[in-house]
Every structure is written in C-alpha cells, then in structure tokens.
C-alpha cells in the first residue's frame, strides 16, 4: 500500500488519531445499519419469537431448533432451489449478453454517447420498474412479446400464469436488466487491451475470430470473473423483479421473498431470522471466494 514518506503530527492530531476520527463516522453508520443488524439477526434466530402470540413480548430460547425447522421446511427448499435456478440461468445469461453488448459497444464509433447511454439506461432503471415493464411485455393479451410472436406466426403464450413460462419471463427480465452492468465492466476491460496486440496479430495473418479467442478473451478473463462474482451475489438476492412481476404474489418464490414474507408479513421474527442467517451464510461464502480472488489479482 501507499506509505507516506514523512511522519509528522499537525496541531494536536497525530496521524493515527486523525485517521481514527476520519474513519469513525463511516464506521459508526456501517455498524448501525449493517454489523449490529447481523449480530441481532443471529441472536433472534435462536429464539421462538412471533409478534402474533405471547412470544412477541417474551421470546423463548430454543437453541438451533429454528434451523432444524428450516431443514425440514419444504417451502424453504423450494425457495432455495428457485434462487439457485435464477443464479444458474441469469449469471451465464447476463455474462453472454453483456459480453456481446460490450464487444459491439467497443467498435470505433465516431459518436460514442448514444451507445454508452444504451448501456447506462438499463443499469439506472430501478429493478422494480424493469419488473413492471417486463410484466407488461409478457402480458398474454396486450403484451408486446406475444404480439411479436403472433406476427411471426406463433401462438400466444400465457407467460405469467404458466409456472415454467413465468420462470423464463423472470429470467429474461433479470438478464436484460443486469447485462448492461456486465457490459459496462467488460467494456472498461476491453478498452485497456493494447491496440498494438491486434495490429501485430493482424500482421501475422490472424483473422478477427482468432484475435478474439487468442487476445480478447484471455485478457478479458479477470474482468469477466469479477462481473461473474458480482452477478452471482446479486442474483442470489433476487427479490424486486419477481415481486413486481407477480404483483407481490409468490407463485414463484425466491429465498429473499420467503425471508421477507416470513419475517415482515407473518411477523415470525425467530424463524425469519434463522432463514436470513442461512441466506447470509451462503452469500458470505461466495463473498469470501470473491475477496480471495481480488486479493490474488492485486498481488
């Protein structure tokens, strides 16, 4: 890391004291909003506590039995499985679409801003809005997707009311929404690949296809990995898009949706906390892998 060449104190503040005071406000805010809640969550997960009965006021310590309950809860496993399916479909999907968009956006356009805005707009669109818009794109009667299908000679599909089709409609919406963020990260990666590499490859007689496989893809791999890990962690938390597309319904339920329903709608704080702890642990494991990778890349 960068070390100052000098070590002096100014006024009454030594460098360490100054650092402490500068870091304190951010640390306090994060402790209040992120660290304390996680500690509280773990604590509550050990109690039977529902606001709908007497345990709301006097929680009963039950050890790990909330976790045991989760393991035999079919709805938990379904929600976990749905969430994993979302990760398995939308992460590779968003990476592929994002890579394609990045390659297209990296072409030598004379005017760059319209294309860049085309990548930024989906990123800035709130997830809920993306969910609402795609809910309506996939509307069986008035949706533009079925309109195009019919124009192409196909049949109307009941996207929202058929479970399998609903899953795919949700995946397509997520891929659309998240691929532009992936594209922006990959575009930054593409722009630092030295042009000379392509020139000398062209001199050696390589065609575009070979340049892509031999130069672009290997040099882009670190950026692709970072985007993949980011996407995995966010896809695991999927909530907004399926919530908006089902108008709050739970025909297709992700883990985040089940956690919220249990804790906030049903006011089952103890069990909801246990579900959240499980979700947190899985997410934490992925983050550790990420941090290890990032540190490895910095060395």
């Amino acid at each position: 890391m960068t070390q100052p060449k000098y070590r002096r104190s100014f006024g009454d503040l030594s460098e360490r004291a100054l650092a402490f005071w500068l870091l304190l406000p951010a640390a306090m805010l994060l402790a209040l909003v992120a660290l304390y809640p996680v500690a509280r969550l773990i604590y509550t997960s050990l109690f039977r506590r529902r606001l709908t009965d007497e345990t709301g006021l006097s929680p009963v310590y039950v050890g790990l039995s909330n976790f045991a309950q989760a393991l035999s809860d079919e709805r938990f496993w379904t929600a976990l499985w749905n969430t994993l399916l979302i990760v398995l479909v939308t992460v590779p999907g968003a990476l592929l679409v994002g890579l394609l968009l990045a390659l297209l956006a990296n072409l030598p356009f004379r005017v760059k801003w319209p294309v860049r805005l085309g990548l930024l707009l989906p990123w800035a669109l709130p997830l809920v809005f993306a969910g609402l818009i795609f809910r309506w794109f996939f509307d069986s009667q008035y949706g533009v997707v079925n309109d195009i299908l019919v124009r192409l000679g196909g049949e109307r599909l009941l996207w929202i009311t058929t479970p399998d089709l609903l899953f795919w409609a949700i995946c397509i919406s997520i891929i659309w929404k998240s691929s532009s963020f992936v594209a922006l990260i990959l575009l930054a990666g593409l722009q630092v690949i030295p042009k000379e590499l392509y020139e000398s490859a062209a001199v050696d007689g390589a065609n575009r296809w070979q340049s892509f496989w031999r130069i672009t893809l290997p040099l882009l791999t670190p950026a692709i990995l970072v985007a993949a890990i980011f996407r995995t962690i966010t896809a695991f938390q999927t909530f907004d898009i399926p919530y908006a597309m089902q108008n709050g319904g739970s025909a297709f339920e992700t883990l985040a949706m089940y956690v919220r329903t249990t804790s906030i709608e049903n006011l089952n704080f103890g069990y909801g906390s246990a579900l959240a702890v499980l979700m947190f642990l899985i997410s934490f494991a992925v983050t550790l892998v990420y941090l290890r990778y990032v540190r490895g890349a910095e060395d």
Partner: protein
Amino acid sequence: MRLSTPRIWLWLAAAIVMVNGFFPAVWILLTSFKTEGELTQIPITWWPENPTLQNYIQAFTGAPIGRYFINSLIVAVGATLLCVFVSALAAYALARLRIPYKTLIFSLLVGVSMFPTVTLLLPLFEMVLALGLRNNYIALILPHAALSIPVATLVLVSFFQGIPRDLESAAMVDGCTRLGALWRVVVPLSAPGVFTASILAFVNSWDEFLLALTLMPSQAMRTLPVGIQFLQGEYTFPWPLISAALVIALVPVALVIAIFQERVVGGLTQGGVKG
C-alpha cells in the same frame, strides 16, 4: 486502429445496443400517450393513435405521484449528502494516512457491500419500530446512506490517490495544517470524484425498493418505486397511468446519467473492478 470495420456493421452494432437499451423506455413513453381504450385493442398498437396527456394529469391528480416524487427526492438527497460526506472523510484517511490493518478495512468494506439487504431487513424493521421511526424519512436515509458507503469510498479513494501528494506537502510546507491542506487543496481537486460518488449514491437510493417497501409502508410516505408498484391493482393493470408515472420517475435520473455519462461509467468501473 483495428482492422477497419465497414460502416454498415457499425450502424448495425449501434442499433442492437441502442434498441436493447432504449426499447423498454421508448415503449413506456409511447404507452404513456395512449388511452385506456387503445391499450386493450387486439392486435395491440405500437404508435399511439390519439395521443393524450390525460395519463400525466391523472398521475398527479388521481395518484399521488407528486408526493412519491418528493419522498424519493428527500430520501435520495439526504442519503447522498450523508453518504458522500462520511465516505470522503474515510476515503481520505484510507488513501493518504498510515493506518494499521488497511487491507482488512478494505476487505470489510467490500464484504459489507455484499451483505444481502433482505437479511438486514428484519433487524432494521425492529430498530425502526423500537425507535418509533416508521414512516419517518430518517428510517430510510440512514440505511440508504450506509449501503452506498462502500462504493462511494472506493471511488473516492481512487480519486484521492490520483491527486499528487506533492501539492498537499507544498501546502503544508507553506504553513497549512493537514486539515487545512485537505480543505484548500484536496477538496477542490477531488470535486469530480465527489460528484461521481454522489451520482452513484443517488441512483442507489432512488432505485431501492425492499427497504422502502418495509420501513415506509404508509401511502403518504411511499417512494416512487414502491408507489408505482402499488399502482398495479389486484385484477387491473392501469398501464397508461403506470407508464406515465414511470416516465415521470425516470426522466430525472435519465437526464443526470445522459449528461454525466463518462463520470458514471468511470465511477462504476472504479467502484466495481478495483473493489
């Protein structure tokens, strides 16, 4: 340059990226000018037949979009100011000062940014209930500010590192204290970084749904994402109204993004890749 690309391919490439990015926005813009009657025609129309502004009037009079807009604005501006202020202090310390366990602090920052929001939801809900802050702007401003601290700090650290240390040393040799140097040299020079961090924090807060849905449940306190989601009825979908509301909600953010694209892209990749 690379192998030259024929112009037609360039146009095609640009068209693909732009249709992908703009189509949903253009579609709701077109729909927002349609009448309810036109919407339920089969086959559906693409271009509005009798363009009307009725949906926009309806959005402000029949639905409290104005109120939602103000709620969103108060929360997002409050969260942005708080977040960027505390992040700038922390980022300066991380970029310039000798701090033990610096790598650990960076890891913690990135780690916290990966916390699933839904796992923080219940404890925050309990805290807000206990403090009687439900339906209070503070209940949303504090978590929104905190959740953007990691990205804002990472963006600002890389900006501070880009400011030549000599400038600061020179100011200190000339008799400034470190804080004086910070205020007179570093702050003015880091305005672009502060601005980038602000845009990212603002967009994060403007877009956030889960906490807003849970911590500000009363209708008068809904932010735009929550308020517009609830325009969907149980059996009815007033799409022209929803579209007009979406356009109203999207225009400010789209404008900011369009004007400051390069900053946003730079900030995103710094906060992301360098994280």
